């Protein structure tokens, strides 16, 4: 018995790796989700989008890249599901050049599921350098920044864009933020043009954005994987984020279990040495 307990202090790392892998894979395979009461700020964001009249124009900004994809991509997909199912029209652009292909992928995937037509129901503008300048100039006139979309189609040949001249025609901006672009959206988009903004952010940068919500400068902030899962719950879909919530909990508990086991072994070993 004592010998067995001593062994607990030196478990092979591969055994730990296997446990972590299984703790991730099994909950995902079972597709089990956790009943979690959505955070009030996520509910507020959801209700704002719900309240938009049909065929309103909404805008989404891709301000992240592959490293923050696990948290923000599910948020983007949930937002697109929400928008297209309510027949809102979507304009996508972004400030992180390497993130745009990720945004485009999701846009085309979800638009395909709802049989939406490019140029009529959604538009992908792409990237232009200069964060603050882009945001300010869009508020004056979209055409000063984007004379054409990502594929060099003049934007006036796109039916959707013919109705959009500046932020006045846009009912919402969803900024998906892994860095500081969210500050620029608030400082220029909201402060100068009263653009209604919801920010979706990585767990790490969420605390930086909460003050904007408290000051009513943004409608709401959706934070991290938890926020994305809450949004999916409200939409009634089981996406990557909801599926991720159970493995999150399970792996944390598995790690705690290993810490405890290690200490049992360690303490037994230390007693035995004395």
């Amino acid at each position, binding site marked *: 018995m004592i010998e067995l307990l001593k062994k607990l202090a030196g478990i092979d790392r591969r055994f730990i790796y296997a446990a972590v892998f299984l703790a991730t894979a099994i909950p995902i395979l079972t597709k089990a989700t956790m009943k979690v009461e959505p955070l009030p700020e996520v509910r507020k964001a959801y209700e704002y989008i719900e309240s938009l009249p049909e065929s309103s124009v909404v805008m989404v900004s891709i301000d992240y890249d592959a490293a923050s994809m*696990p948290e923000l991509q599910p948020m983007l997909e949930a937002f697109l599901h929400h928008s297209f199912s309510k027949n809102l029209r979507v304009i996508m652009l972004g400030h992180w050049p390497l993130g745009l292909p990720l945004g485009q992928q999701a846009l085309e995937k979800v638009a395909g599921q709802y049989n939406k037509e490019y140029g009529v129901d959604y538009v992908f503008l792409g990237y232009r350098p200069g964060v603050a300048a882009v945001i300010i100039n869009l508020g004056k006139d979209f055409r000063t920044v984007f004379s054409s979309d990502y594929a060099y189609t003049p934007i006036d040949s796109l039916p959707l864009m013919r109705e959009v001249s500046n932020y006045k025609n846009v009912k919402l901006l969803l900024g998906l933020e892994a860095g500081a672009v969210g500050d620029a959206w608030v400082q220029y988009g909201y402060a100068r043009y009263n653009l209604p903004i919801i920010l979706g952010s990585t767990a790490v940068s969420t605390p930086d954005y909460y003050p904007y919500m408290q000051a009513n400068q943004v409608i709401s902030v959706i934070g991290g994987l938890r926020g994305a899962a809450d949004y999916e719950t409200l939409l009634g879909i089981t996406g990557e984020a909801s599926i991720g919530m159970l493995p999150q909990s399970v792996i944390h508990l598995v790690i705690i279990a290993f810490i405890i086991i290690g200490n049992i072994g360690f303490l037994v070993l230390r007693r035995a040495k004395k």
Partner: protein
Amino acid sequence: MKKEIPLAITFISGVLLVLALFIPHKPFGNLEEIFNDWYIIVSGFTFLLGIDSLLGYNFGKLKRKEKDAPYALVLILSFFITLTWGIVEIVRTPEHNPFGPTSTFSLYFYNSIFIPLQATMFAILSFFIASAAYRAFRAKEINSALLLVSAVLVMLGRIPLGQSAAPYVITVIFLIFAVYFFAESAGVTEPKIKIAYILVALIFVALIYPLGFVYFRQHIPEFADWIMNVPQMAGKRGIMIGIALGGIAMSIRIILGIERTYMK
């Protein structure tokens, strides 16, 4: 001369940037921006040195027919294929940008090779974080016990299942501590210390219910936030002030030419 001129360059560029902080008047006002642009241009050119080194190293392996030679070839090939692919897309795409949405480079290379490699390498961290926690979080003495306990409590506070799991985790940890102190007391002859050990063990047992089942079951997320916002913040602030003082002193040593390992 070979040494004096570089030292002078370091001194002048350093001092100018410090002055620029306090002088908005031209040409100081936008000096930081100008220097940054210069730095970006210079560092762009230094990649020639990098490529020379990387390819030279791997061509060397190939020439010497080392055991790893086939892999060196893989590296060289992937370098040139990627570079060529990117250049082709710079020329071909209307926006002259291989990372743009119409580029096959971003569509195939970036999405199906680069991202999986990068994201998986990043994801490996979750395995390593588990093995590091298992190995390093041992209650060797009071400080390492505190390290362990604060980590576990913050973990519990972060997850949705934390509140329901907290009472049991606390029970197990405290029972271990209690058993350990009981076992320790058996080996002690001095009656005062013996009683102290037993008392500590009893305190741990007594705390299980009020702390675990009453307080943490309800308040573990708040408690985790408290650890992050109060003691964690104090420690972090102390480290940062130290880093600032040390970094400024180091910078002054560099400007004055006292610290010059980088160019001997």
